[in-house]
């Protein structure tokens, strides 16, 4: 199975408009399950469509394996029908005038495969995706989840080296979505395809991907394993986009923020090099709380706040803490035995602090400092 390589890929719709994708370098390795993650309008779908050849480049080039398929400067363009990929559309795009079997069969017929082999392969994917019993129906007679599976089957039938998926789960209800996620993971194993998956849903990306590429405003923000993305966000955008409830951000020098001043003082005192550096982020689940200040573990960043909300989410709870200037969210798995309006101490260990510079980029030396500190 080939790898996919984008270098300096760029897309703008018209000379004066902003780049939908700018200067994107992306490598999708053989057999990977890559998620392109980002808010709507971040250029992830455009990227996918550029890989498929449905969108032309404004600059840069794309390679599939060793083969150059798209390059503005060398004047190369291999059309989508010759790129040998699969793409599942958000809308499924089943052909309404063909039965399920003919939909699935379509690509194989074009490849002029002998009838027996065609039938065998169609049968295999239809069985694999559990749609064989609908073979003579038309797409409009199927439910969303079934259509979804037909759309997948149609692409898998031709056994593409690369399978592109454009938010394929977004039109399904929660339960089906869960089933399809498992299905996709299974397909990835069974068919050994490289999968590129576009989504704006971070849970989808986290649960499915082997690698996540986070995009925003047309540029790649970070590429890494799901754990990387979550535990070591490369910048504030990634930190804030991934995680729910979102990461708590305290910006240094924010005029009225007591907590920001407190964390600035806390860091500055221990690590002079981090004085006045930018902002810090703390994940909600990394914050602990205690009714008495004496229960706060020594060495952590801590403070006093009032509980203004206890929100059960089923199995865990979100606490909203406030003082005059700031709001913090923390999550806990233990039933909180406190009441709204009471005052609590919150605390976070130094290794839970994500330090960003004034441009919002992660300060790597801070990681070294803060984590070593915990080792000692």
């Amino acid at each position, binding site marked *: 199975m080939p790898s996919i390589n984008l*270098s*300096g890929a760029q897309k703008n719709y018209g000379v004066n408009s902003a780049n939908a994708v700018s*200067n994107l370098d992306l490598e999708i390795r053989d057999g990977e399950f890559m998620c392109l993650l980002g808010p709507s309008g971040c250029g992830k779908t455009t990227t996918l469509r550029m890989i*498929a050849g*449905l969108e*032309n*480049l*404004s*600059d*840069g*080039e794309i*390679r599939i394996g*060793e*083969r*150059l398929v798209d*390059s*503005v*400067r*060398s*004047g*190369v*363009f291999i*059309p*989508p*029908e*010759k*790129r*040998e*990929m*699969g*793409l599942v*559309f958000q*809308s499924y*795009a*089943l*052909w*309404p*005038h063909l039965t399920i079997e003919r939909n699935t069969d*379509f*690509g194989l017929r*074009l*490849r002029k495969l002998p009838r027996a082999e065609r039938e065998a392969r169609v049968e295999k994917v239809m069985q694999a995706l559990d749609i064989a019993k609908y073979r003579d129906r038309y797409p409009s007679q199927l439910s969303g989840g079934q259509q979804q599976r037909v*759309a997948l089957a*149609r*692409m898998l039938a*031709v056994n593409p080296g690369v399978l592109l998926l454009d938010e394929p789960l977004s039109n399904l209800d929660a339960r089906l979505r869960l089933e399809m996620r498992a299905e996709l993971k299974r397909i990835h194993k069974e068919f050994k395809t490289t999968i590129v998956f576009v989504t704006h849903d971070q849970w989808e990306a986290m649960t499915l991907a082997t690698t996540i590429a986070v995009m925003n405003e047309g540029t790649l923000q970070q590429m890494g394993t799901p754990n990387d993305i979550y535990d070591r966000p490369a910048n504030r955008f990634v930190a804030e986009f991934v995680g729910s409830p979102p990461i708590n951000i305290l910006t240094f020098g924010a005029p009225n923020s007591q907590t920001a001043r407190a964390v600035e003082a806390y860091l500055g005192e221990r690590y002079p090099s981090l004085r006045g550096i930018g902002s810090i982020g703390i994940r909600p689940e990394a914050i602990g709380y205690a009714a008495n200040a004496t229960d706060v573990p020594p060495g952590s960043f801590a403070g006093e706040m009032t509980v203004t909300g206890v929100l059960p989410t089923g199995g865990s709870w979100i606490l909203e803490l406030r003082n005059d200037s700031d709001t913090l969210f923390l999550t806990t798995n233990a039933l909180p035995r406190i009441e709204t309006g009471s005052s609590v101490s919150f605390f976070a260990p130094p290794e839970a602090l994500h330090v960003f510079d004034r441009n919002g980029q992660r300060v790597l030396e801070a990681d070294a400092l803060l984590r070593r500190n915990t080792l000692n």
Partner: protein
Amino acid sequence: MALVSETAKAATLPDAATAPTAWQRWRYRTKVASREPTTLIGVLTALLFTYLIVVPIISIVLDSVRVQFGHERRLGKDFGELTLYYLDRAFLSPVSVDLFWRPLFNTLSVALGAISLSLIIGTVLAWLISRTDMFGRRWFATALIVPYMLPAWTFALAWTTLFKNRTVGGQPGWFEAMGLTPPDWVAYGRFPIIVILALHYTPFVILLFGSALRRFDSQLEDSARILGAKRYQVALQIILPLMRPALLSSMVLIFAKCLGEFGVPYVLGLPVKFEVLSTSLFRSIASRQTGVAGVVAASIMLIGIITLMIDARLVREARRFVTVGSKGSMNRQSRLGKYRLPATGFATLIFVMSVGLPLLTLFLSTIMKLPAQFTLDNFTLDYWIGRDLHTVALQTGVLLSPDLWAAAKNTLMIVGLASLTSGILGLLVGYVVIRTPVKALSVYLRQVTFLPYLVPGIAFAAAYLSLFAVPRGPMPALYGTVTILVLALIADQMPYASRAGISAMTQLGKDPEEAAQIAGAGWLRRMFLIVIPIQKGSLVTGVLLPFISGIKGLSLFVILAVPSTDVLTTYSLRLVDYHYTQAANAVVLIIAAIAYLGTLAAQKLTKTNLAEGLGS
């Protein structure tokens, strides 16, 4: 393709800091565009429509400021030189009153009268049909649209059958025959034209206003009521402002239609010399006043273009409101209570007046020897199937006349060929407009195919006459041939055909085709395996609707057809001119039947709504 060397070159690449050169960009874009014939097809169709639509219009505008054949001596200039003579003659000279100003005034007064009347009737009916519990709402919803499916001058002929008086020779009208001489103002001219056009165009109001009413969310009314607004306040402050675009839009459309209407004023205006712009244009052409005809035609076009530009603005405005009644819209019916019966009676009355009475009159007139004499011996089928009649010409019933069948054959061939071509071209245009990466091409195609819509048919026909009457370049003179009729019809029908094509392609979206592309299908395969099969329905509509409007169309043919290329409409008009009233009415009934059944068939076949075929 030398992939290896490409790869090698690419390795030394890309300096992302510098943009690719213009040459590189151009080469890449050409490469992308040349993968598919879309752009090529677009360029070819754009050229075709430039020739079929833009050039004739330019030609007639030029005619109006250039010395025409036969006027060289009088103007002291050579043929084709620039002159203001025709403009002067049409706008300023003593005859300008007859040539332009009075017809203009008449056109405007007729249009305004028709608009007012149809608005009054139409809004009430639209409301009754879409928002009340009137009896037989569903039936009326279709029945009251029927007048629009019939040619407008069907009603004009029915009117003369009833009200014709001694001012004109030939068989008298029923009232005259019964001894009640209708005054001229009832029999001919402004009054009957207004009434007939109003009845004919009321369906416009019913469809446009009705659909706006149906889309109107009752929750908007409810919100106002809950906040304490009284019924009349709701009507004035909520409903009316939201309905205004639909109302204005139907007004403008009726105006544009009245501007080009030829048959009705021709039949009813001629006896009392009541001229509107279209009949004045016809007279100028008939009397070989090409220059003046150019001026009048260009004026009609100009008025038409201005009106429809106003309409385009209104539609934009209306679109602004569309989001208002988005999802969860509710449409609640008002209870009429004790007015339920009278309301139904009103709708029935309008139906009888606009469909029942005219058709019945026409039908009876074709089976009666003497008008308004309802005795058994006066009835006969001779006018349909008789033989050896004692008339100068047309000595058989109309169904046995070879002329009718020749005309029918011509109609079928000319209109059929034109509709088929324009339907296919429409789908192609739709495809190119939606798919081509060359934006300028898409915009040009969209606009050029829409242009004939702004030009009333009669002016368009005049433009064709001006361009193709004489040989130009490689084109031989086409006047009197089937070709010119087919070409003019194609051009005239393109607005509907391309609009149908564009909307069909927009609805289809690009996903199904892209999915096929990913699956490995090239352009031709995608066209024949995906696009055309999915678009079968709209292709049928795109052919059938122009076909129906072509069959009942008159204004194009009346200028471009000659006896050898007679179609049903011109044939019946000729019969009117010769006062073969019964035969003329019979032919008109045949046309009406074809148009009506065709529309129904189109609806059944494609499950489309009439409202979508509106304006064709």
